């Protein structure tokens, strides 16, 4: 193993999570600043010492943060491209900025407020309104077919997996049921009613084979984390969560992924993360059996299953049997997955809750603490480039 220990996440902070729109009349910048202030307090630094921002999913207005929080100077401000794919990678970007001495304390964050005028899950075909998205020449090959929302693409991805490998809806149900169980004892989780297998099969079908439970929720909130050098980390409040390795990329043949769907048959029924897993494992010398907890981006339950295969926790095509054996359960699983409830059950802050949970797990302070947790995998995505993965170590 060649796990790096040059940089570490030293502060984590979050607002409460609410259902869509309920964070109003707070403003998005207010939510974000509350999370940043909380992360600085958690780290034990003055928030005015924050001097860098490493974003994903379009990023935010660094100048407005500086103006609002009275920051002294900015040394770094950049974003990974794409959307939620970059959640884990944004911390890698922060780590790179710190290692290159562009900045000392770099914030990665997500803030989300979905008012009636601004909601996620943009539809390609809506000409106006809360779900509208700018039309493109490429979109003309998608939208006229009523293929207008991410769930439509993910349904077809998983349908192919079901066809090739005999995977059933039971596998998706296990993701939904196990993550809901993990959310039950979490004070901030939005969804806290247990789900049974009967509940799962009784749920409304949205885009067959995906039912209501297979979709994440629409929620509001903000999460921020602060990355700094290992030297500075030593003097701060909590044990460092070292950035042991990260990767943000993808297989060129993945292309536009779900909004293209022309991938070869070896790539199509995957989460597109195989190349990122390979990069991460080659750079660090670790393998899936070294990982103690996996925080896998879960906007849709099947993408958890496909990432389990992409990251090598089980052989390709075998995830149905793997999860049926209880392997992803917090209690007794060989690789506990989304111990915080994830996007599906805790809150959908576009993957930043996964980073926070990874930090808590290697600190040893998680609510659903995995015993002797030394190494946490956090992922962003799928599907836009670059997909990202992050390893945090104690």
């Amino acid at each position: 193993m060649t796990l790096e220990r040059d940089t570490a996440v030293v502060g984590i902070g979050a607002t409460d999570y609410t259902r869509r729109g309920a964070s109003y009349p707070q403003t998005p910048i207010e939510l974000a600043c509350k999370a940043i202030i909380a992360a600085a307090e958690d780290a034990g630094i003055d928030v005015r010492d924050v001097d860098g921002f490493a974003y994903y999913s379009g990023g935010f207005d660094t100048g407005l943060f500086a103006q609002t929080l009275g920051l002294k100077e900015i040394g770094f401000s950049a974003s990974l491209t794409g959307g939620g794919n970059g959640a884990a990678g944004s911390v890698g970007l922060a780590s790179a900025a710190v290692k290159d001495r562009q900045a000392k304390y770099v914030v990665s964050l997500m803030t989300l407020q979905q008012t009636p005028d601004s909601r996620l899950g943009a539809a390609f075909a809506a000409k106006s309104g809360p779900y509208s998205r700018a039309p493109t020449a490429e979109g003309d090959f998608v939208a006229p077919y009523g293929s207008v929302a991410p769930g439509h693409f993910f349904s077809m991805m998983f349908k192919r997996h079901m066809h090739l490998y005999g995977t059933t809806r039971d596998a998706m149900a296990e993701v939904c049921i196990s993550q809901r169980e993990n959310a039950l004892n979490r004070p901030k989780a939005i969804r806290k009613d247990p789900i049974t297998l009967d509940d799962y099969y009784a749920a409304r079908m949205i885009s067959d084979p995906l039912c209501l439970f297979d979709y994440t929720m629409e929620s509001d909130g903000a999460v921020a984390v602060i990355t700094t050098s290992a030297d500075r980390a030593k003097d701060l409040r909590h044990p460092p969560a070292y950035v042991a390795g990260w990767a943000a990329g993808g297989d060129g043949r993945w292309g536009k992924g779900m909004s293209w769907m022309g991938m070869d048959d070896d790539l199509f029924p995957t989460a597109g993360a195989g190349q990122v897993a390979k990069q991460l494992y080659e750079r660090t010398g670790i393998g899936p059996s070294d990982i103690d907890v996996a925080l896998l981006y879960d906007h849709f339950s099947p993408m958890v299953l496909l990432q389990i295969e992409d990251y090598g926790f089980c052989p390709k095509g075998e995830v149905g049997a793997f999860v049926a054996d209880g392997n992803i359960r917090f209690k007794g699983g060989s690789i506990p997955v989304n111990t915080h409830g994830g996007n599906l059950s805790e809150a959908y802050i576009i993957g930043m809750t996964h980073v926070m949970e990874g930090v808590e797990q290697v600190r040893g302070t998680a609510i659903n603490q995995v015993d002797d947790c030394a190494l946490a995998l956090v992922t962003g995505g799928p599907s836009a480039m670059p997909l990202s993965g992050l390893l945090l170590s104690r």
Partner: protein
Amino acid sequence: MSARPRGAPSADLAVLHPDSWTIHFWEAAKDHRLTSAHCDNCGAFRMPPTPFCPKCLSQETSWPTLSGDGTVYSFTIIRHAVIPQLAESVPYVLAMVDLDDAPGARVFTNIVECDPETVFVGQPVRVVWDDTSDEVTIPRFTPR
């Protein structure tokens, strides 16, 4: 204009924004002719049309008339309308179809003129033309 195929989603969605590469596909569709971008240098097909062949980087492109036969690669039966324009369209079948005589070209489409519950992966299908307006024609597919 002929009657629209049964099971095709709302014509409101059939609004096109072609660029200088995709226009060839849509002009052929208007003539009820299914085509795909075809590289004249190496013979590879690609969809949707892009300015370069990803295999050989040639820009030499032709637009052959295809048979219209395809095979269902994957599909979903959409039962919930995510936008108001689709409220009258559900349930409908969204599918990826591989074009049989254009290897490498896979298109989004709908499987129409059939019971959605009978659609399956690997199903042989053929193109049907949906004239959604005087200006726009959308290719969809039906079991053959």
